[in-house]
Each structure stands twice: as C-alpha cells, then as structure tokens.
C-alpha cells in the first residue's frame, strides 16, 4: 500500500510538473526559444499573489484571476519588446536575453521581498485530503492541481489543432517566412505563444506556492524540473510533456519511498537515462507545437 501511495502521489505531482513545463515546451516548439527565466516567472507570480492577498481583502482565487491575465500581457510585451528583436540576431541572443531576465527578476524580488522564504496561505485546503482507503489519501490541492494541468493541456492541444490562430502558430513554427507570405505576422504569433506560456507558468507557480514554500532565488531550481519533464517526454510534444512530468513525479516519489535523500536524485537519474538511451524523448517525433 505504501508503494501504491507513492505511485498515486507521483502521478499527481507529475501533473504539476507538466503544467509547469508546457509553457517551456510551447516556447521552444514555436520559436526555438529556451526560456531560462521560466522558473523565475513562476516565482514572480507567487510573490505577486502573495502581495495582493496580504495588502488587499482579495483572496487567493481572486488574486490568481488577476495575475494570470496580467502575466499573459506581460508575456506578449516581453516577446515583442525583448525576445523577438533578440531572435533576429540568432538563438544565442534569446538565451542570453532570458538569462538576463532571470537575473533581473531574482534580484528585483530579493530587493523588494528580502531573501526570506514565504508560503501562500490557502487556509484549511492545504491539509484537507480525500481518504480513499485507510492508508491511501490524496490532498485536495494535489487533485485540483492535477485537474488544472489536464484542463490546461487539453485546452492548449485543442487551441493548436482546431483554431485558426493555433494553425498559424504551427505553420509559423514550421516555416516563419512561408507563414509571413500567407499573411501571418510572426511578431504577433510569437507574442500570443509567449502570452500563453507566461499565463500557464504563472498558474503552475501559484500551485507550487500553495504546496511548498518559495523564495526569490528558487526559480532556477524549479526550472530544472520543467526542463526534465520536457526532455523526458520529448521536445515539442504536449502529451510528451504530460508523460514526462508524470515519469519525473513517479521517479521522485518512488525514490523518496526508498530513501528520502534519494528524492531529487531519482528524478535526475531518470532524466539522464532518457538523455543517454532515448534522446528524442518517450513520446517522440509527433510534433504538436
């Protein structure tokens, strides 16, 4: 029963990782941009919600509903203002630009909030759980996170495959110049992709913040989880990202069951094994983004 518990918790944790990684996957799939500030965006969102709930009477849910669209707009502006110009001079420039963004966000947060560790207070929800059997119970928060991850991934998949904008996004990912000749403005398409990526990473950052504490410098550590989920699942595939997140989550919880010190190492080992033996990822080659 202990192992069943580890597996269930691992799968649920995987949902959070997938939610966290899908924006990274989208930005890489559409623009070939590796966003090194991805983890810091998640942390920034957490601090914003933290500020809103301690300074105003607005609750966590209300603050989330304010911050998500704000991050979408922020994403569009970062893309059109910083990343698109950098993209014109090559992929290395975008790497440097996002690295710079990461440092700016970390230091600004440290300046504004000090290096203290914080947590988002979600009241009784943090410890409430659903008892399935005597030894197996799952936290509502984990279930909600997992449900949100599935909703976001399905919505993203439908957006890319069914809508005109999604179609143009895939076309632009294939061949930006040919898309331009069909009337698409790559700057705008890229802006939308980054807006979606930032909104999803903000949501993931908030779910993280409700379940564990955060500090201004934790972004890069979180970023590694997103990278690992994307690489394990296969670059550019949304379902791959979900599978990758779950494999990573499972490795961590099963590793923790063997020895708590083994938690993060188990995830990294799976990641290395995939890189060594199946570098195209578990769900390979069916590009969706």
């Amino acid at each position, binding site marked *: 029963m202990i192992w069943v518990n580890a597996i269930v918790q691992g799968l649920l944790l995987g949902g959070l990782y997938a939610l966290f990684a899908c924006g990274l996957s989208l930005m890489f799939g559409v623009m070939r941009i590796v966003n090194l500030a991805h983890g810091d965006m998640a942390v920034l969102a957490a601090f914003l919600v933290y500020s809103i709930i301690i300074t105003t009477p607005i609750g966590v849910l209300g603050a989330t509903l304010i911050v998500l669209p704000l991050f979408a707009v922020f994403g569009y502006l970062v893309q059109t203002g910083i990343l698109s110009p950098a993209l014109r001079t090559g992929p290395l420039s975008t790497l440097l630009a996002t690295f710079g963004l990461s440092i700016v966000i970390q230091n600004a947060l440290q300046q504004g909030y000090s290096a203290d560790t914080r947590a988002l207070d979600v009241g009784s929800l943090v410890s409430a759980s659903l008892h399935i059997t005597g030894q197996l119970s799952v936290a509502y928060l984990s279930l909600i996170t997992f449900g949100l991850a599935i909703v976001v991934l399905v919505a993203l998949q439908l957006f890319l495959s069914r809508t005109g904008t999604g179609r143009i996004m895939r076309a632009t990912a294939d061949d930006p110049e040919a*898309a331009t000749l069909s009337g*698409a403005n790559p700057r705008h398409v890229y802006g939308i992709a980054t807006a979606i990526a930032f909104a999803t990473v903000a949501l993931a950052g908030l779910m993280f913040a409700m379940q564990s504490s955060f500090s201004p410098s934790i972004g890069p550590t979180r970023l590694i989880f997103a990278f690992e989920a994307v690489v394990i699942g296969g670059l550019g595939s949304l379902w791959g990202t979900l599978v990758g997140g779950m494999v990573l989550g499972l490795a961590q919880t099963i590793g923790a069951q063997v020895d708590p010190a083994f938690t993060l190492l188990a995830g990294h080992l799976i990641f290395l094994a995939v890189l060594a033996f199946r570098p195209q990822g578990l769900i390979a080659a069916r590009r969706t983004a």
Partner: protein
Amino acid sequence: MNLLVVDQLTVRHGQLTAVNAVSLDVADGTTLAVIGANGAGKTTLLRAIAGTIMPAGGTVTYDGQNVTRVPAHRLAANGIRLVPEGRRLFPSLTVEENLLAGAYRRNVNSVIELFPWIGQRRRQSARSLSGGEQQAVAIGRALMGNPRLLLLDEISLGLSPVAVQGLYAALPDIRAAGTTVLLVEQDVSQALRVADRVLCLLEGRPVLTGSPAELTPEAIETAYFGLTRRAS
C-alpha cells in the same frame, strides 16, 4: 492600368548586387514572365516585391500605393501572394490546414475545383505529397488569400514535364478570375507560352523586354546568355 510598377529597384546581398536598377510594370489582369539564367536575380526580384527582403534602392508601387518598405505579411493581406521557390509547405500540417493557413476564404472548394485530387487527400500530411502535388498545394495556399497579384517563383523547378504541364494547365483559370500574374521561369518555352509580356534579366539587369510574338528566338538566346554578336 498598371497594378504593379517597379522603378529602378536595386537589391544587394552584401557585396553582390543581385538586382540592379530593374524597372518593370504589369497591367491589371495580365501575365508577365521574367526569364533569365541561374543567378540572374529573378528570385531576389520577386522576394523584394513580396517584401521578404528590403531593397537598397528604387520603389515598388502596387495599386497606386508605394509599398517598397511594407512588411511581407501586410502585403500578403493586401493581395500580393508569393508562391516561394522550393514550395515551402508547412510539413507538420495537413494539406487542408496548409490551404487554410492565413486564408481569407473559409473553405477550400475553389482550390479543389482547380486541383480536384486535393479533395480526397485533404487530411493527409503535406510532407507525404510528391513534389508536383506539393507545388499545387503551394499555389492553392496562395490563392486562398484571394490575391490580386500572384507571384510564382520557378514552379517547374525539379518537377517532371507531366507535373509541370498539370500546374500550367491551371494558369488560364487563375487568370480568368482576374488575377495578375508575375512569374519567374527558367524554362523559356513554357514562359513564352503563357505570358503576355516577357522580361529577360542578365546578371541583375533587364536586357530584353517585349511580347512573346515580337521576340525572335535569336534575340532571346542572345539576351538570356549575354552573348554579344561578333561583327560580321
């Protein structure tokens, strides 16, 4: 009335002047063929008109407006559609999605009328098509934008004679819809057959222009290869 007027257009690739002070005009509803050997600047000329490369000098006037520095996506929205060299379909999209990408028309029926085989194969991935089929879809994709000016860049390149014939057979229908066509072609006889006027480029400069009827094969040969006749 001239739909397109190009005046003294010059385009450079670094040190190389690919298009050197080229002037041309295309009357509404007519077809102009630009011929010339490899490296004559034909593709560069089309790309500069379509807005994917910025010229170093000269002007492009479309429908009475100076569009020299207008970006390609806006020109595409205003009815200038380029079928690029090498077809450039979106490989991860299906045939139908390729047609619908950036389309103003909501359905693909008009393209299926032109190329009936697309009807059965619309759900297929674009990368599974043969070269000639890909070229047809690339032309269809451009037509989906309801172009007033269609720019065709070497649609016969790398295709079998049968496939080329199939593509050129669609041209009269496209022209009958009132579309003005500017096509670039290495295959001179093909170009002479479909064009109202012909312009021959040599090393980036226009060397010969006229209607197919008034140009002699000798004159075209001389212009095409840049031969200078020895005084006899």
